[in-house]
């Protein structure tokens, strides 16, 4: 699988592949939204505001997942020093940032009608905000540090530090008492979400993951082209 992300593979990537992915994504997300907004039932307590979950939960998953990849790439980068590897993380960061923001905003929109408040400083919400700041830092370093080696070094350190925040986010609802509810979907036990609500959740997750893949492939290809261009000029 990793081989598919080697530079020569990406550089020879055809635009038609991306176009096909876009069509698949539109189909899946439309299906997911139709299911989420019209065919899935309202919740017995929350009513229709449960539908926010179909964007909120996949966004949160993806934002955590992408930073996990960025963190692991940062470790590989500092140890193995493979030239193109940081470009993968650099291309993923803005996507993760957007999804973290989406997760926080949709969560806030859900919190007001459910909890009675837009924002609280409990462990889950605060650690998620810290993730957003880590994404900001990571992106800023690449933007404002012009020396490539330096930017590469600093961003990797930020990536590794941010990695330590991920278990805190994941387990915050179990370790401490928080306003945010514990996870409904866990690896160890049956989900506490009714199946009519899990199906649209999974469809939306797949759709948004394909979106992530598309934006990543486009950004990563551009980054590789820039790298190649620099080498040619030298």
């Amino acid at each position, binding site marked *: 699988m990793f081989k598919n992300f080697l530079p020569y593979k990406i550089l020879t990537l055809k635009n038609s592949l991306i176009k096909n992915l876009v069509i698949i994504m539109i189909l899946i997300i439309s299906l997911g939204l139709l299911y989420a907004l019209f065919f899935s039932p309202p*919740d017995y307590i*929350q009513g229709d505001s449960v539908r926010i979950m179909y964007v909120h939960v996949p966004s949160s998953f993806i934002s955590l997942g992408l930073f996990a990849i960025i963190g692991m790439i940062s470790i590989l980068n500092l140890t193995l020093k493979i030239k193109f590897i940081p470009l993968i993380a650099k291309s993923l960061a803005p996507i993760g940032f957007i999804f973290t923001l989406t997760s926080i905003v949709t969560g806030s929109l859900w919190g007001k009608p459910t909890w*009675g408040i837009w924002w609280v400083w409990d*462990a889950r919400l605060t650690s998620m905000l810290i993730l957003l700041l880590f994404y900001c830092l990571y992106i800023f370093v690449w933007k404002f540090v012009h020396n490539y080696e330096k930017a590469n070094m600093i961003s990797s350190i930020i990536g590794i530090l941010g990695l330590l925040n991920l278990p*805190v986010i994941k387990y915050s609802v179990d370790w401490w008492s928080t306003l945010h509810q514990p996870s409904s979907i866990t690896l160890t036990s049956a989900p*506490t979400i*009714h199946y009519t609500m899990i199906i649209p959740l999974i469809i939306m997750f797949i759709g948004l993951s394909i979106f992530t893949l598309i934006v990543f492939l486009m950004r990563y290809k551009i980054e590789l082209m820039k790298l190649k261009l620099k080498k040619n000029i030298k």
Partner: protein
Amino acid sequence: MLGKKAKPRIAFLIITLLILSLIIFLILKSLEENVVYFFSPTEIYNKPNISLDKKIRVGGLVKEKSLSKEGVSIKFIITDLKNEIIVSYKGLLPNLFSEGKGVIVQGKLKDKKYFIADTILAKHDENYMPPEVSEALKRTNN
């Protein structure tokens, strides 16, 4: 596959990561009082010296049949099924507030059994289901 230079770098990184996780663990441990968003009635009960002037949050379930309203002043009991605290509050309740459901109240303790709230937040649990399923569950439980 690993170059000669890579091995010490990996060792260094692993040690740094371990130390950093330890530091974060210790920081969070020492801040536990602040990281915890609310206390349960039992935790309040077991606290030896509790300040009555400081704003705190207490969370638990609204005890069934404990809610009473007189105009805008509301009284109910928060329970964690071991200990209970009476809460008095003036104002609007969140929509999802109901007996038997989770709640977090913010305000000050008058004593260990009596709480004056200025904010009430409804806590949602991890269960999501359509109304029909909830009805069916209720019927089988009764």
